[in-house]
């Protein structure tokens, strides 16, 4: 207690030193005076009295010094002293200070910016209780490339019943509905969830109550939870909302409560959910061969992800044996929520983090080089300090304090830069990717920057400090005035630094080069259809009114007819899922091979379409015919397939007239006849493999999947007809609303180009920064070392050396360093670029074109950075050079 008090008092004393010194002087003077007076009284002469008093006190200065030590905190005071001195030194050479701070600010700023993405995406905190105990469970069939598939209701029920590593599991399905409550119908997104969904997540409603056990049984009264946003927007934040009724797809649901705005879907972090309803899990005969459910589980106490994965694999193996037809090949993948949400961005962000680390290293190298040069000119200062008794540690500490000053100032500037650039990127991408909302320079990011700037200070400060502090005072002071050249040691350190800088720049440039080549390759891919002037939208047709396929078909007939009559519309069709917006895969069998083993069963993207679909998207018909209005219920079942399907299952045969049937269809039901072959369409993205695709006409009410989208080709900007379409739909049925209105061009951009352009632009910017910084660094090192050798060059020229030879002499050293650096960089890139192969498309990680051009580019740039100072050196007049100091 009293000790702490003492420490606080000492801390306080740091701030009014002068007053305290003055008091101490007075006190000691008074002490001496009293003592002298006593001594005089004892009969000493005044000189003796003074002398004896001084002797007894033991030295005024020593006393003062020990009182001062007791007064403050010596270590802190040394630091403050160093700080003041450092500030003075930095002010004295403003050019050095400005360049160093600017260089470091770029490095630290870039790191801060990228880390705020990492922090926002990978380290994001989720609104659930103990979110790190929550796992997403996927059905997985790695052999066929379905690593993360949704789960069948039967598998879900079995997992839930059999697993011990999970406290509980909940399931959910995306759903959409038309909300009509006296207002105009509104399309809303929702989730159908098991009744334990929110208790598994550990999320409670902000108003009212959550689902109760049994709410998900068939026949239970219809209840719903609504989102905070919907509550505010549509129900004017009614505090008595619980118990009220809403109409979803013309069915009445009792509102139980309001969920907080913090809710995000566990799988992908999506926050655009407006309502939740319990889903009806059929307990008697859950479907086993239709995968439909997302599953989230909470680990039981003591269980780990690894243990859970092991147990689930065993359960899956048991199910494989038990249900061979549906479960052959299927296993389970268990991943954390963070893994699930950041699945796509994780590799990108880690690569960017590495890249930005390289930029900072280059910045450190540059500043370290500057420090070295400055250290040479400060040798006398260190020698004098050494002569006055400062040991090497003390000098190193002084220099490191200066480094910390530099790096903290740079961090302050860097944070501003980061804030600005993060805002910029957020503005550009937020519209297309809501994940960017979580990206900001927050406390965690600032903490990271603080730690980083301390590390940075040591990185660029320690080696130069150690090197320049090791001066021999005698020798240096004797050399008085002569600017002696740097020692061999600092020379070789510089060489290493420059070579390292080249290598780092090469690595970044290769990475950026590969991404640029990838982007180029992706934009060259033909999507297989003409996306220009095509509108796509979503119409849900959910609810009891459209349960009968015939009712749905009538709606589609009328809708397409109405849309086609709108001015500016060329063609229109409904479709299950337009290209790039999803995959709807189903197994089928062919007449030739009606009973394949389950793991070899053919499958294709299954699209239910209208007669004008191919015309609307301008997908070429290669053989046979398209659908007509005559392909209706009662007529012979027909199908159109794409080229890939034809080649895969009937290679080299005449495909028209072949027969196939969905594998879920009743045995002995009618075959579908192939009537046409169309060109391939990229179903899942520009960079994805072509997949087999199967088209059937909606008027034959083809089995369960109902199409929920439509595509419209227009003569001009397709968004101009969007409102007219909206009106047409509500004329047919005022309870229906369209949503997800977008153009196919935009879909392609968002789906296949947006992320890639983000990666490319970011890594490209970093590589550009790296190149710039390293060129500046190499140039300044070369200029410096040439200027150090001016005198030597003068001597050579005076003795008759040809300028060409001298030029070569100077260039040779720089060239050697650069070549070594570039070679190391290329080699390192060869090893590292493999890490980014998941981001590449049609470009090998060891793409020779990229490697060669980066090698040439960097060599050329480094050559120039060497050549300019070297040439300047040979231009000097020998007489001037000889006198040069």
């Amino acid at each position, binding site marked *: 207690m009293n000790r702490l008090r003492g420490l606080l*008092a000492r801390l306080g004393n740091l701030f009014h030193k002068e007053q305290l010194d003055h008091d101490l002087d007075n*006190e000691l003077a*008074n002490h001496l*005076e*009293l*003592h002298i007076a006593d001594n005089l009284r004892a009969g000493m002469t005044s000189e003796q009295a003074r002398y004896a008093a001084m002797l007894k006190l*033991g030295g005024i200065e020593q*006393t003062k010094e*020990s009182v001062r030590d*007791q007064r403050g905190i010596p270590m802190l005071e040394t630091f403050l002293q160093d700080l003041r001195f450092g500030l003075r030194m930095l002010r004295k050479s403003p050019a050095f200070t400005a360049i160093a701070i600017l260089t470091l600010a770029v490095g630290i700023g870039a790191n801060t910016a990228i880390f705020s993405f990492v922090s926002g995406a990978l380290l994001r905190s989720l609104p659930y209780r103990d979110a790190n105990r929550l796992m997403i469970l996927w059905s997985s069939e790695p052999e066929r490339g379905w690593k993360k598939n949704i789960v069948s209701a039967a598998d879900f029920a079995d997992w839930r019943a059999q697993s011990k590593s999970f406290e509980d599991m909940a399931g959910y399905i995306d759903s959409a509905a038309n909300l009509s409550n006296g207002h105009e119908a509104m399309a809303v997104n929702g989730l159908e969830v098991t009744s334990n969904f929110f208790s598994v997540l550990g999320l409670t409603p902000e108003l009212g109550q959550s689902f109760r056990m049994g709410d998900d049984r068939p026949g239970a009264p219809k209840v719903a939870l609504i989102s905070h946003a919907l509550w505010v927007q549509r129900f004017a934040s009614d505090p008595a909302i619980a118990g009220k009724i809403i109409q979803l797809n013309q069915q009445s649901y009792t509102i139980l409560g309001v969920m907080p705005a913090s809710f995000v879907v566990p799988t992908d972090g999506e926050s655009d959910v407006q309502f939740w309803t319990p889903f009806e899990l059929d307990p008697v005969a859950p479907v086993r061969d239709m995968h439909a459910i997302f599953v989230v589980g909470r680990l039981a106490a003591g269980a780990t992800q690894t243990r859970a994965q092991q147990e689930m694999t065993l359960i899956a193996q048991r199910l494989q044996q038990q249900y061979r037809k549906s479960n052959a090949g299927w296993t389970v993948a268990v991943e954390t929520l963070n893994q699930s949400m950041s699945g796509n961005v994780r590799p990108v962000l880690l690569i960017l983090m590495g890249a930005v680390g390289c930029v900072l290293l280059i910045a450190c190298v540059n500043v370290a080089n500057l420090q070295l040069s400055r250290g040479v000119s400060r040798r006398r200062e260190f020698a004098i300090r050494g002569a006055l008794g400062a040991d090497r540690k003390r000098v190193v500490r002084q220099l490191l304090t200066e480094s910390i000053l530099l790096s903290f100032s740079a961090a302050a500037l860097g944070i501003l830069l980061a804030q600005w650039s993060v805002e910029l990127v957020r503005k550009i991408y937020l519209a297309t990717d809501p994940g960017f909302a979580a990206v900001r320079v927050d406390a965690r990011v600032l903490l990271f920057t603080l730690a980083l700037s301390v590390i940075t200070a040591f990185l660029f400060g320690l080696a130069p400090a150690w090197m320049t502090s090791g001066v021999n005072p005698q020798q240096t002071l004797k050399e008085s005035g002569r600017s002696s050249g740097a020692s061999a040691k600092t020379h070789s350190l510089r060489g290493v630094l420059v070579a390292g800088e080249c290598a780092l720049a090469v690595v970044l440039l290769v990475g950026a080069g590969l991404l640029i080549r990838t982007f180029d390759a992706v934009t060259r891919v033909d999507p297989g259809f003409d996306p220009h002037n095509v509108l796509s939208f979503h119409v849900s047709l959910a609810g009891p009114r459209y349960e009968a396929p015939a009712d749905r078909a009538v709606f589609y007939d009328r809708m397409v007819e109405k849309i086609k009559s709108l001015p500016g519309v060329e063609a229109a069709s409904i479709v299950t899922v337009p290209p790039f917006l999803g995959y709807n895969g189903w197994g089928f069998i062919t007449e030739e091979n009606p009973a394949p083993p389950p793991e070899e069963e053919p499958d294709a993207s299954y699209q239910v379409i209208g007669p004008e679909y191919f015309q609307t998207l301008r997908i070429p018909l290669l053989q046979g015919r398209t659908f007509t209005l005559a392909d209706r219920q009662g007529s012979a079942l027909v199908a159109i397939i794409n080229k890939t399907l034809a080649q895969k299952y009937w290679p080299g045969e005449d495909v028209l007239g072949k027969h196939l049937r969905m594998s879920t269809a009743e045995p002995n039901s009618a075959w579908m006849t192939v009537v046409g072959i169309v060109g391939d369409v990229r179903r899942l993205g520009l960079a994805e493999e072509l997949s087999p695709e199967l088209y059937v006409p909606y008027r034959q009410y083809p089995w369960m999947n109902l199409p929920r989208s439509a595509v419209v080709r227009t003569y001009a900007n397709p968004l101009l007809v969007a409102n007219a379409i909206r009106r047409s739909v509500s004329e047919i049925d005022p309870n229906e609303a369209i949503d997800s209105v977008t153009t196919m061009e935009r879909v392609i951009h968002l789906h296949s180009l947006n992320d890639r352009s983000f990666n490319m632009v970011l890594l490209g910017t970093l590589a550009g920064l790296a190149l710039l910084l390293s060129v500046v660094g190499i140039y300044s090192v070369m200029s410096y070392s040439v200027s150090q050798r001016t005198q030597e060059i003068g001597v050579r020229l005076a003795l008759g050396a040809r300028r060409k030879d001298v030029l070569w002499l100077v260039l040779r050293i720089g060239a050697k360093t650069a070549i070594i650096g570039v070679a190391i960089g290329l080699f390192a890139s060869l090893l590292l670029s493999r890490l980014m192969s998941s981001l590449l498309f049609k470009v090998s990680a060891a793409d020779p074109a990229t490697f060669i051009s980066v090698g040439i580019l960097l060599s050329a740039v480094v050559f120039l950075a060497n050549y300019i100072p070297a040439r300047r050196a040979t231009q000097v007049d020998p007489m001037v050079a000889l006198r040069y100091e």
Partner: protein
Amino acid sequence: MGDKNDVWQGTLALMVLKTLQTLGALHGYGIARRIEQTSGDLLSVNYGTLYPALLKLEQEGYIASEWGVSDNNRKAKFYKLTRAGRKQLEREAREWEQTTAILARFLSSKEQPS
């Protein structure tokens, strides 16, 4: 400063506290003289070492100081005991007595060869 000094500092602090208890407010020189006299001039140290000790006691709140006028009519800094200082003095004096008692007993015990 070494270990010896720490021991000295500890006992010096006790002497200072005791002196101030006996004599009331006193300036540094007075404290030094008093300690020297009380010890019968057996104890002879530099007066300078007194000042860091005074500062430390003051920082810990055992003594307080204020400026006053000394015998020679000059401004001088006077130290006096605080309430915490009085308690600390009692505590330390007790501990010191215990220590010396133990040591005394220890040193006076005669060796008894078996």
